[in-house]
């Protein structure tokens, strides 16, 4: 008997259950609001219609989700591949920092969405402008977090490593890089969600396939249920990629994840 109650208790305490309950609550309120305020379906579709569309259009949505996902992944990988070395250079050299960092921050004040059409002019309607869009959005958070991670090594720790006669490379490999890993992963997690946005923006301005294209087409045709279904798919892409990254983080820096887990348990 106790075994069964403990299993039930574990189910009640499962971390995915509470957000799910909340989500259901939102959907119910959505449905109620439509009925109460008599909102016409061309403004907000009923949840049921969205679910039906999701079900019926699933093969099409999946097919269109794939290029969006590919563009997101490439954009994200480029962000990581460029962002982390740039952060290393900025953190490693005052000179490089003084030249590059202010410009990098300044470049962030340019709305990247405004540049997206430019990419279409330059690179046409293919995959490349979408990837670049995703990269442009995902790049900055990686750099900022990684710089902060590399720079937050305690000065005493640096002195300690130097007193062991460690050279720059050894200090980087044994101290700075592992120390920066949690911050780098935090930046990557922000980056991957922004890369999804970037890919969709890229599809808005210049593409005839992908979820972004589906979104735009369905709005143009007043197919609101399809548009909402596309939004759900988009959210799923974001969640799945985030989750994959989380798993990789746990594998890459188990010492950090376990520590965090312990704090979570204690709290």
């Amino acid at each position, binding site marked *: 008997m106790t075994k069964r109650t403990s299993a039930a208790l574990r189910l009640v305490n499962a971390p995915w259950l509470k957000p799910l309950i909340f989500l259901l609550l939102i959907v119910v309120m959505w449905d109620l609001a439509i009925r109460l305020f008599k909102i016409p379906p061309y403004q907000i579709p009923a949840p049921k219609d969205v679910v039906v569309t999701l079900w019926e259009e699933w093969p099409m949505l999946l097919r269109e989700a794939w290029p969006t996902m590919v563009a997101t992944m490439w954009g994200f990988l480029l962000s990581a591949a460029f962002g982390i070395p740039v952060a290393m250079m900025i953190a490693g050299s005052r000179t490089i920092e003084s030249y590059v960092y202010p410009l990098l921050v300044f470049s962030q004040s340019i709305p990247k969405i405004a540049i997206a059409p430019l990419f279409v002019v330059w690179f046409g309607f293919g995959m490349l402008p979408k990837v670049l869009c995703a990269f442009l959005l995902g790049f900055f958070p990686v750099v900022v977090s990684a710089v902060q991670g590399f720079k937050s090594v*305690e000065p*005493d*720790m640096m*002195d*300690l*490593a*130097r*007193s*062991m*006669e*460690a050279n720059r490379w*050894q200090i980087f490999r*044994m*101290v700075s890089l*592992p*120390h920066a890993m949690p911050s780098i992963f935090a930046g990557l997690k922000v980056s991957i969600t922004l890369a999804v946005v970037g890919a969709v923006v890229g599809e808005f301005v210049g593409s005839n396939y992908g979820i972004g294209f589906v979104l735009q087409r369905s709005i143009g045709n007043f197919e609101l249920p399809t548009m909402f279904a596309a939004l759900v798919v988009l959210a799923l892409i974001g969640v799945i990629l985030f989750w994959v990254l989380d798993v990789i983080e746990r594998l890459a*820096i188990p*010492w*950090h994840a*376990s*520590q965090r887990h*312990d704090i979570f348990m204690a709290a």
Partner: protein
Amino acid sequence: MKQATLRTVTDARAPSGSARSTRPVIEIKGVSKTYKTQDGEVPSLKPLDFDIHDGEFLVVVGPSGCGKSTLLKLIAGLLPPSEGEIRVDGRVVKSPHRDVGIVFQSALLLPWRRVLENVMMPVEVKGLPIGEYRNRALALLKMVGLDGFEKKYPWQLSGGMQQRAAICRALVHDPKIVLMDEPFGALDAMTRERMNVELQRIQRETGKTVLLITHSIPEAVFLADRVLVMSARPGQIDAIYDVTLPRPRSLDVMADPRFVELTQVIRRHFNDPKID
């Protein structure tokens, strides 16, 4: 004051009564340090002259900002002196060198390394033979009572245990001198006293030359062969006291009249309202 031998700066180089050897391991000759900041030059240490003998336990006490930590970094070769020279074992210190192990106020163990891996870090960095020093690391961990914790991560250890592991790391490559910058400053009072007894034992067993910096006068008198009192900014030597209390000392020694008297004498240096 009659019982605790008091000596002044001028005869600091005279052989110390309680030190086991009079051979100087650390020689500090006319060393001063001035930091260059935006507001101009800030003197941190006035020229210092003193020796530390082989196997000696020297404790430096002084108010905050008297350049104690600077002195430690100079000896470790982490900072160049502005004037004068420092010799360790006869060789002039120009950069970080092999003969030093450091313990800071916080244990500074790397959280991604297990305890043994943390202790082995200097061995890895210096490219010393792993197998041989691994045994030494294990023996050191056993000596400080951490046997059975080799495979634990630092966060699984208490503060006192972490600091013991840090001491092992400072000793693993068998350096001549161990420099300690307020090593027990972050521990609670009871752990701190226990660690003092422990450190005394470790120093006696390994025969290392130790330079320890502290704010605690009782800690200084309890541990030291000699106590070096520094005055505030820019730092200079106020006095050097021999501590002739017999070793090994237990915590009971703190009730000894000689102990009490010496702590009072030293404390007077800091309560004195005179400005030099």
